[in-house]
């Protein structure tokens, strides 16, 4: 793995203008230069809402393989710019080919689910150590997850597998509530709600998943896989099914635990959220700033990777596993091995 973790430039100051100056990007606000960064430091540019990018900068990013991603002012994903299709056509053909082989689809889809469930269980198990008083309810959930993990390989069809995942997920989120260390009613969390998120925790989870999905898409594209051809998730126009497959094993570790820490350390407060008509709750500009700063820091934390036996920054985990996925799809290795946290 010779890839280095490049930084992400987040621009969310409304009315900013990004332009190219030789090999650097300049961020301007109200006609003043706020920042100038050489492009070689940057792997991704993420902009929120009313932020303009000059056509020259956009063109440069696309030819240099710098991902450009747009979110609306509330942090909902809008679009990403992708250059010419590149990468290995033979690899993509292998990727399609697996889709026609039901046995292999099941084999790989079940690895994603297994990875997710095992990591979910670990999140709860760690919590048992940290909060002994919550032990009884958490232990019950861990047992149920244990049971589900054993059943992953017994599922005969994709729909059964998806059902099992859904059940385990509801068990997990029920227990997740008790991991929150806050007496503030504002941060009460009942159950996972999406489209729209209905409370601050759900707003954070949704935002974290959305960012992580973009990271997974970039990672897959980086190794030449088509992010839309997935196995566990049904194919649908515009849906990055393979990225959604890949993200499953990372959710508990890279998103859920991260959100938990943010809330439990009281890094976010009421003023970081906007209540939208219809009951939707979303992070606002201030909240996103705090969120992204910690997220970016966390991406640089290193762990000893259990499979490749190397120190890897957390931000590169999707890249490592995209590569393992490619090796599996090409038939170099017999099984895809999901990321399992310690």
């Amino acid at each position: 793995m010779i890839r280095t973790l490049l930084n992400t430039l987040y621009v969310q100051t409304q009315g900013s203008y990004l332009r190219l100056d030789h090999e650097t990007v300049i961020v301007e606000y109200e006609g003043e230069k706020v920042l100038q960064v050489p492009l070689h430091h940057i792997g991704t540019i993420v902009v929120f809402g009313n932020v303009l990018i000059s056509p020259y900068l956009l063109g440069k990013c696309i030819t240099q393989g710098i991902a450009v991603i747009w979110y609306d002012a509330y942090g909902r994903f809008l679009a990403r710019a992708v250059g010419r299709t590149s990468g290995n056509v033979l690899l993509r053909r292998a990727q399609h080919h697996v889709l026609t082989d039901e046995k292999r689809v099941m084999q790989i889809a079940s690895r994603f689910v297994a990875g997710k469930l095992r990591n979910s269980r670990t999140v709860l198990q760690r919590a048992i150590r940290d909060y002994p008083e919550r032990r009884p309810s958490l232990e019950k959930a861990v047992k149920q997850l244990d049971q589900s993990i054993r059943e992953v390989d017994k599922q005969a069809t994709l729909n059964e597998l998806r059902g099992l995942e859904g059940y385990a997920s509801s068990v997990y989120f029920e227990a997740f509530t008790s991991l929150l260390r806050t007496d503030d009613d504002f941060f009460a969390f009942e159950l996972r709600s999406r489209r729209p998120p209905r409370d601050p925790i759900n707003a954070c989870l949704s935002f974290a998943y959305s960012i992580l999905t973009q990271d997974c898409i970039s990672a897959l594209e980086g190794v030449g896989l088509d992010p839309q051809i997935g196995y566990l998730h049904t194919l649908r126009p515009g849906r990055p099914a393979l990225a959604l497959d890949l993200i499953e094993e990372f959710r508990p570790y890279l998103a859920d635990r991260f959100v938990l820490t943010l809330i439990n350390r009281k890094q976010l407060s009421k003023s970081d959220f906007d209540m939208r008509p219809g009951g939707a709750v979303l992070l606002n500009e201030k909240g996103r700033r705090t969120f992204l700063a910690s997220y970016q820091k966390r991406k640089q934390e290193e762990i000893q990777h259990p499979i490749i036996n190397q120190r890897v920054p957390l931000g590169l985990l999707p890249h490592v596993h995209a590569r393992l996925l490619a090796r599996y799809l090409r038939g170099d290795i017999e099984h895809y091995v999901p990321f399992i946290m310690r």
Partner: protein
Amino acid sequence: MDILVTYDVETQETSGQKRLRQVATICQNFGQRVQKSVFECRVTQSQLEEMVHQLLRVIDKERDSLRIYMLYGDRNRVVRVYGRDDYIDYDHPIIV
């Protein structure tokens, strides 16, 4: 790796002023200005070679001087800064 680039460009003639601007642009492309003709850059080996190559094409070796110092070790340990400091660590979150 972190490197420190400093230069003196003879600017008596207009051709010198042009060289000065070109040298500054190249340095800007690879790093950031920390003093008037001093740049700190975080580059890979190949980026460093590319930068040196571009600089050598521009400078007039008879009149100008270019120095590149390799900073081995963590920048926080090997650089002491006093007074004004506008250095931005691009490994830290960049959120505008």
